[in-house]
């Protein structure tokens, strides 16, 4: 409980938020969103574009005030104790927060000084981070000449100069090519190993699956699911039955019969996916129901549910790109 001398409460959560609401005009960007993140863990906020992920990060990192709701980060209230919160966190946004006309080492030294290091200590910290992120060679080049992956790495390095306890990463790999993304993943895994709390947003299910211990799914401003990746997969179903249809007509017919139950649609490959428990009677019953004439389904496969299935099952049709014909699952996971 807050008191006069130390407003920080003893709490077991690195981040805890309840009832966060933010409205722009008539649009409710966040609608009573709440979550809890354990210290030293990697937590991923997953959601489609426009779900409110960036708003959530900006509120938790004190850059934006919520209209309603409360949150504590590193034990401090994000409104009353926002200066203390800022001294405990770092934020890396979607766009590199760096001066392009300055060199890598100049950027890092500046951030080191702003985070309270003086003189030679700022230089040492900058060199240390450049080495850790494989940027020593490029240290004396202007950031404007860096590749996208290098800029992201420098941006993350810049956010670490003050040794924050809680690190916010807003879509850290959006727009990066695959090798650069894998480098970032390694960097984030190393960070998590060093004991800091990482809160990252992503629209890549694969990324959340790879990095995060716990995941919350944000859709249209609401947290629609929360748990470990395994729990979320269990929530939908253990297995998925993938049907390959005989032709476009058969695809349309089967899609119509399945309705909302299909969690995966790929018209170009003529495949539909339906959650199932994977037992023979259940699969047989499903096949009989969809294709009593035994003319539509050409082949089928049963496989483990992915986070994609969870995501598609949980998010609303308006913001769910997977329900739009012609948008393949690949695009959702890798766009």
């Amino acid at each position, binding site marked *: 409980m807050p008191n006069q001398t130390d407003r920080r409460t003893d709490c*077991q959560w690195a981040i805890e938020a309840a009832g966060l609401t933010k409205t722009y005009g008539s649009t409710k960007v966040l609608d009573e969103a709440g979550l809890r993140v354990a210290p030293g863990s990697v937590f991923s906020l997953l959601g489609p574009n426009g779900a409110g992920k960036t708003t959530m990060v900006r509120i938790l990192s004190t850059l934006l005030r919520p209209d309603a709701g409360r949150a504590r980060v590193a034990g401090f209230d994000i409104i009353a104790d926002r200066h203390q919160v800022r001294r405990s966190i770092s934020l890396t946004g979607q766009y590199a927060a760096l001066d392009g006309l300055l060199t890598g080492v100049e950027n890092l030294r500046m951030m080191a000084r702003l985070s309270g290091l003086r003189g030679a200590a700022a230089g040492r910290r900058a060199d240390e981070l450049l080495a850790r992120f494989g940027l020593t060679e490029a240290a004396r080049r202007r950031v404007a000449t860096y590749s996208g992956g290098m800029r992201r790495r420098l941006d993350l390095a810049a956010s670490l100069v003050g040794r924050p306890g809680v690190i916010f990463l807003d879509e850290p790999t959006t727009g990066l090519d695959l090798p650069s993304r894998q480098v970032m993943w390694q960097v984030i895994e190393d960070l998590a190993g060093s004991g800091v709390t990482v809160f990252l947003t992503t629209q890549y299910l694969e990324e959340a699956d790879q990095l995060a211990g716990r995941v919350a799914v944000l859709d249209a401003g609401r947290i629609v699911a929360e748990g470990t990746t395994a729990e979320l997969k269990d929530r939908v179903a253990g297995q998925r039955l993938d049907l390959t249809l005989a032709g476009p007509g058969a695809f349309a017919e089967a899609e119509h019969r399945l309705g909302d139950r299909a969690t995966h649609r790929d018209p170009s490959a003529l495949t539909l996916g339906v959650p199932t428990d994977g037992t023979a009677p259940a699969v047989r019953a499903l096949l009989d129901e969809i294709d009593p004439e035994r003319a539509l389904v050409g082949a089928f496969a049963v496989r483990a549910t992915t986070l994609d299935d969870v995501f598609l099952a949980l998010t609303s049709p308006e913001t769910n790109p997977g329900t739009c014909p012609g948008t393949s699952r690949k695009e959702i996971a890798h766009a």
Partner: protein
Amino acid sequence: MPEITGAAQPVLAAGHRPAWRLSTPPADYLTMAARCARLATRQVDALVTSLALPVVLMLTFVYLFGGAISTGTRYITYVVPGVLLLCAGVGSATTAVTVCQDMTGGIIDRFRSLDVGSLPILSGHVAASVVRNAASAVLVFAVALGIGFRPHASLAAWAAAAGVLLLYVLAISWLAAAFGLLVASPEAANAFMFVPMIVAYASSAFVPVRTMPSWLHGVAGHQPATLVIETMRGLLLGTHIGANGWQAVAWCGGIFVVSVGLGAAAFRRRTR
């Protein structure tokens, strides 16, 4: 509203900044000033323009227009303070642009999440403006002396003239910084240059106020640019400055204070 409660185990932050130091550390001002000064030297084209423009403008007025303007003295002697003032004004648009660029780019979020306040951020841009103006003033004086400018000023008068110009630069640059916070794009911020430009042209910078239409005398004779120019002229030529001196200081001080307040308020509004 749901209650947030928790048990033991505080989450310790390991930052370098002591949590008890909540006011802005003075070093932040230096760091931000160094940043902006360094950025200014990296924009070579803009830097060359800001250094060359005053000299070109002075040569234009002295050799192209000056012959037709009767001021009672050699025109070069008359025009130097006006050139410095006009260029400080036009150059301050750079401050509006760089402030706006910061606000529309990602870096402002980094500064804010490092808990850097609005005053150090804006002061950095103003400091860069002061450095640019100091460099262009030295260049203007050097060229002016080469083409016949002959001041009659003591060291103290030189220092006082420089002080008045500095005060004007601070006031107009802070006003520009506030403007940069109020507009949406750097392109729009650049339009700030027209404010000090019109103010300079409607002053005694290039022609004596008595040659203007009589209805303009009241404004043109007492507006801040005229007061600053007449003060500098008096100090550099060793003539009487009268009430111009303290009025110039009062105007610039007033604009400075109002602009700092406006800038801080606009920053809060923009980052709400």
